[in-house]
């Protein structure tokens, strides 16, 4: 696997992750843990709120992937198979998600989105709690959604394990990934084009849209639902 500092040039500490990306990342991690804890400790109501908060985060992140800082944009990091192959052979230089990491980002986002979608239409086994959109589907569908929701968490756990293993692997090869995700800064080879930061107000707009859509869904997605 390649190091990001070719030719022994003096590396510079630069911003690679903007604040919205870092906040998204750590809030998502915290809320997934919280969701797991609440559902195993008889706090189904908090579990549903947690899922709604994750939904807001997901919508925000997708929008930020189009209008955010350069390293947050899908267009800048999602690449084809040949770019992934090049990366694997050590021919890649840049900041942000590498072409292989991009696959991991998309898969994780998709897996969490599926989990949220299942939760939205699920109901608990006693019929005490309904997901915000459960009224749009039949009881049978809600019950099936809950079963798959439970099983799908294992998929998410496996992806999280893979994510952590990859971080450990890079660490063993001398590349620290965790600290930059906290501070936003990493050592970058000279000559690498720096991150173009997004506008803070654009982040707030993305967040407002995320909250708006989430609240609409919490209301049962009228006029389709209650």
């Amino acid at each position, binding site marked *: 696997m390649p190091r990001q500092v070719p030719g022994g040039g003096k590396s510079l500490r630069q911003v690679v992750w903007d604040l919205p990306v870092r906040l998204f990342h750590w809030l998502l991690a915290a809320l997934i843990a919280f969701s797991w804890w609440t559902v195993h400790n008889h706090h189904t109501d908090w579990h549903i709120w947690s899922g*709604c908060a994750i939904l807001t985060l997901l919508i925000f992140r997708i929008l930020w992937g189009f209008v955010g800082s350069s390293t947050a944009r899908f267009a800048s990091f999602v690449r084809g198979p040949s770019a992934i192959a090049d990366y694997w052979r050590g021919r890649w230089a840049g900041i942000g998600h590498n072409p292989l990491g991009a696959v991991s980002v998309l898969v994780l986002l998709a897996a969490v989105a599926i989990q949220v979608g299942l939760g939205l239409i699920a109901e608990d086994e006693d019929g005490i709690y309904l997901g915000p959109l459960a009224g749009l589907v039949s009881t049978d569908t809600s019950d099936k959604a809950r079963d798959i929701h439970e099983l799908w968490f294992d998929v998410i756990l496996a992806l999280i394990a893979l994510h952590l293993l990859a971080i450990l692997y890079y660490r063993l090869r001398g590349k620290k990934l965790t600290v930059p995700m906290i501070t936003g800064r990493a050592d970058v080879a000279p000559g690498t084009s720096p991150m173009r930061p997004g506008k803070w107000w654009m982040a707030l707009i993305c967040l407002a849209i995320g*909250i708006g859509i989430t609240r609409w869904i919490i209301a049962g997605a009228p006029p389709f639902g209650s």
Partner: protein
Amino acid sequence: MRSKLLAASCACVLLAACGGWKSGQANSAQGNISKDNRPPATAKASVVTNNGMANSMVMLAVPLPKDRALQVMHVRHEGMEAIGDANKAVHRALGSSDIGTVRANAAKIAQLSQQASTWFPAGTGPDVGKTRAKPDIWQSADDFAAKLRGFQTAARALQLAAGGNNVAAMNARFADLGATCKACHDKYRAEENH
């Protein structure tokens, strides 16, 4: 600027979680249900055969014959599932103010809740067969019996409310009922094993 954005974002994500999805969450429902303290006679008789320590002694000394125990456990499982199905039907019907469906299923729950008095004889715990009923049921027999009575009372209250046309009242009684399900399940039902 950074810290402002951070604070604003956190606040907003939290705010997003401040609407109200529809559910029969029970706000302070627990207080309401136990006003009616008339215990259905059957509950007391069959669940609490003895008090405290004596009860577990009885369980050890005179266990139900295994085939009979498994039979009860099967009836219990089917009954609980039927209550769950009826509860789900009520929940959805309340969402669409379908009073007829609420009425029919509330009656079903009330009826099954009375039968539930016979579902937990000593010797039908997880040591006998596959069940999520925890042994605590027979170790805290008085508390369990009280919770079962609370459930029966709440089920009857929903049935009465469903006899009228006040959907708000039905929603309130449904929330009370859900709280009695949860109170017992949180304490006495083991997690599902896959």
